[in-house]
């Protein structure tokens, strides 16, 4: 116990996991919030210190129960997942800062404790997926996060009963996805006889022609495709994001799909060998075309949406297209771009959903006409939506620009400049739908009956933390791009330097 930091990998997951039952046992709304917040902050602190210690490209391994890797479960931290650990726990902390007020309005008092419990479990699951080095453990944590997510989404039912149907759809789709995934994991186990990622990597080398291995990859791609809302398996997503409570939407949009994408990347690079012929084929003929279709089709769909939350959900699917495109280049640059995109899009979407949530706090609906003219009445919040929107479009000086820029560079490096053109074209579509919101915010007269609402600092502070970080990461790219670069190189060369 004297060297706590040696146990940071497990504490990362353990603290929220431990606090979840405590939340239930305590059973008071305010206490639960405090506990949750404490858990989230300590996760963030741990994640940052982990990121710091692996920032030189090394990795940390932790053996659960003292059993050495191929036998026991191993937790591995390298720059790839440490980076996302920071994103997930950071977003969670910021979201929690403002959750208190928002939750009071959106969820019945008696459900608060359980809400926070589920939130903690969801956080546990996401962090666990990221940190574990065991393929079956990935599935377990994925299910922990997914199951609690279904509950969280269903909590939107107080405002709109359609949340229940959305949560049910999500449940079905998520479960199907998880099933596909676990079948894939089963096949891998069948072929290699081990569950440790790095052990599999060693053993799978000669098994490229094995049909079991090939089929397992197909299962995993589809399973994760469902979870990360890869077009056309995204159908659960607009509903879930639209009807879930704002806090949940904000948190999920910034983290859940990103974590699933991470799993796909991790499996492609650290479990399978990315230079397997069949993997290249999958990315070339399946993922890349679907990603490109998603970029355009979903942006067009977003343009025609009247409900801003739904519009942003579709925009997320389009953005996932960018990330998948980055991965499917199967190059180190593409992977860097995707990692930066994961991070930047995470904070961007969180900013957008959060400011939207505050804008529609009192009207309770998020149609375009509901935010009409709020630019004057709620200048600070509208401004932060504006910043988020600019970042989503990729205006220079915002975080979004950095990720698009890297992606464009990666496509040019990969020798397919036509993709760069497509990326720029689809960014223009993003301008259109963001502009529609801005237009309603700033260039229209507000509804007269809407009195000016005071927004407390507890909401403003987290919101502006996010908005400013949207801008900040547009200037200071040393952390995002630097870490992503190391992460991508490690994954690409499969360097796991254990210390």
């Amino acid at each position, binding site marked *: 116990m004297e060297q706590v930091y040696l146990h940071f990998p497990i504490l990362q997951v353990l603290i929220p996991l431990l606090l979840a039952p405590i939340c239930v046992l305590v059973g008071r709304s305010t206490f639960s919030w405090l506990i949750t917040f404490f858990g989230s902050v300590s996760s963030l602190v741990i994640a940052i210190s982990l990121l710091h210690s692996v920032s030189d490209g090394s990795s940390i391994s932790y053996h659960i129960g003292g059993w050495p890797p191929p036998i026991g479960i191993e937790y591995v931290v390298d720059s790839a997942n440490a980076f996302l650990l920071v994103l997930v726990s950071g977003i969670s902390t910021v979201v929690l800062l403002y959750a208190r007020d928002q939750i009071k309005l959106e969820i019945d008092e008696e459900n608060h404790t359980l809400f926070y419990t589920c939130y903690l479990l969801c956080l546990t699951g996401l962090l666990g997926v990221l940190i574990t080095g065991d393929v079956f453990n990935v599935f377990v944590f994925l299910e922990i996060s997914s199951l609690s997510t279904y509950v969280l989404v269903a909590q939107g039912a107080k405002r709109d009963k359609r949340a229940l149907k959305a949560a049910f*759809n999500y449940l*079905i*789709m998520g479960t*199907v996805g998880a099933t*596909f995934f676990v079948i894939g994991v089963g096949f891998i186990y069948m072929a290699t006889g081990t569950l440790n990622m790095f052990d599999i990597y060693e053993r799978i080398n000669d098994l490229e022609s094995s*049909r079991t291995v*090939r*089929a397992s*990859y*197909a*299962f995993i*791609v*589809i399973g994760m*495709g*469902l979870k990360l809302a890869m077009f*056309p*398996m995204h*159908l*659960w997503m*607009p*509903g879930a994001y639209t009807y879930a409570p704002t806090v949940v939407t904000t948190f999920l949009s910034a983290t859940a799909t990103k974590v699933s994408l991470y799993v796909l990347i991790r499996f492609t690079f650290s479990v399978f060998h990315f230079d397997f012929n*069949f993997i290249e*084929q*999958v990315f070339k*003929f*399946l993922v890349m075309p*679907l990603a490109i279709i998603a970029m355009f*089709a*979903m942006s*067009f*769909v977003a*343009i*025609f*949406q*009247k409900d801003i939350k739904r519009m942003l959900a*579709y925009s997320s699917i389009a953005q996932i297209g960018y990330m998948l495109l980055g991965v499917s280049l199967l190059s180190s640059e593409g992977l860097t771009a995707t990692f930066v995109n994961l991070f930047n899009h995470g904070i961007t979407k969180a900013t957008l959903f959060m400011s939207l949530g505050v804008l529609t706090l009192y009207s309770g609906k998020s149609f375009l006409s509901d935010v009409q003219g709020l630019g004057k009445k709620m200048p600070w919040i509208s401004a932060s939506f504006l910043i988020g929107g600019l970042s989503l479009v990729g205006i*220079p*000086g915002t975080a979004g620009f950095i990720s698009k820029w890297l992606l*464009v560079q990666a496509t*040019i490096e990969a020798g397919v400049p036509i993709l760069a053109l497509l990326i*720029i074209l689809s960014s223009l579509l993003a301008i259109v739908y963001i502009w529609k919101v801005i237009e309603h915010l700033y*260039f229209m007269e507000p509804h007269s009956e809407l009195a000016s609402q005071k927004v407390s600092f507890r909401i403003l502070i987290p919101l502006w933390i996010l908005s400013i970080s949207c801008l900040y990461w547009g200037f200071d*790219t040393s952390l995002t*791009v630097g870490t992503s670069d190391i992460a991508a190189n490690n994954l690409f060369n499969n360097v796991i330097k254990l210390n």
Partner: protein
Amino acid sequence: MDFIQVPSSYIFYLAAAITFVFLRDRTLRSVLLICVPIIALIQVWNLEIGNHHQVDFFNLQLELMRVDKLSKVFGLIFCLAAFLGNLYAWHVKDVVQQIATLVYTGSAIGAVFAGDLVSLFFYWEGTAIASVFLIWARRTEASYHTGMRYLLIQISSGVILLAGLAVQFHTTGSIAFEKMELSSLSSFLIFISFGIKCAFPLLHNWLQDSYPAATVTGTVILSSFTTKLAIYALARSFAGTEILIYIGAIMTLFPIFFAEIENDLRRVLAYSLNNQLGFMVVGIGVGTELALNGTASHAFAHILYKSLLFMSVGAVLFRTGTSKASELGGLYKTMPLSALCCLIGAASISAFPLFSGFVTKSLIMDATATEHYPVIWCVLVFASAGVLSHSGIKIPYFTFFAHDSGLRPKEAPINMLIAMFITSFLCVFLGVFPDTLYNILPYEVNYKPYTISHVISQLQLLCFALLAFTVIMKLGFHPPEIRAINLDSDWVYRKYLPSIMLRIINRLGSVNESTRSGLENKISSGEQILLNIFGPTANFARVFTNGVMILWIAVIFTGALAIVLF
């Protein structure tokens, strides 16, 4: 003295931030708006030659303060113009305009000192985005549409610049913003990008479209920066590129005719602006020291007298609510001071001796002559007569004299008058003491504008042109001022292409045509097609039952399996 080396643009951005956050008091804001350019002016004046401020961006090193004599002269005049423009706009209460002005001028000055293409690109887009708010600030539907068109063109200029810079970086690994040859793809793209902002022929129409659409004060600000920034960029990168001479010559020519028949006086000035840019572009194309001096000094003088003209017409617009020649006339009775300033501006732009235009334009004319471009020289002389016709005569004559319109507006507000006086003073001062200006030019000047030959030939040209005007007016041949607009090449994308697009869309789409009429409706039919594919009720966005979703998964999975196994 590290403080003095920070990028000047930061001062403006900081002021914009302060304005946005703190200043609720209108007077304080106006004071700030006036003080900031003065501070920047002092800073720029004291800058030493050299590269002062580097920033790391990705793996690139950005030069934010490249100070040499060329950038310094542009920096100075930009600060001066910002000061005059803000003084003129003292009465404006609109925070949006004030912030836009600060960001816009800051970006322009930043771009002047940018030592590499990446930071140039950022500032380039900064000017585009900030300036559009000066157009939107008028808050009418028309200004909104005009602003959108303007923004689209300005942004595409930036995008092309970005493309050029990317190609250059990819091929040479350098992002230096230096002199380049018009031989590679990258330089060609950059050239086009500069050309758009510089309003090259056929790329020019955003200028005439947008400047009359901005607010009274907005146009004064707009007229000073965007195009002159492009001139600076061209002078920096493409000095001595011969094609510029011909482009410039055409630029001096065609706006003359349009200006002559244009009714909106601010658009007349926009055409005139375009024509003056032509002189500068010719100077860049010639590329000798004398010619570049001419370009820089002409830009300097031009910013002043063009602002002055826009100010006086703006004052009229401010007081009467119109800037159309057909509605104005006889205003000298009640706005004599504005009329006087307008006359000084007109004399300067027509290059009467003792006014600023005379001492700067002749540098360029002389350079073309020395380098033996007789045809170009003749064109420029011709264009000089043209300048007299629209800016020298038309603007003051139809606004303040001509037939009495019956309007009796009050004299311009005091702040506008002060701004106009200072500008007039500078115009005359530079004309009388040209050496003040010559001393800050990029190269050493051994040129005497006031030789007897030169003065006489110029006076002959101008006086006889005036005589011709008198004769033509007496004979009644002068095109009358009527309420009408004139088509320019923007007609192609504002009317012609949309109609072609619609024809194509109509061919493709099976849209019920009988119920629709007019172009607007047809555009919306294109939207309708998209709506049918992507709209909320279309297949792409519908919420399906779980069964259908599972079916999709099955399809995709079969695909994946097929790819993997075979």
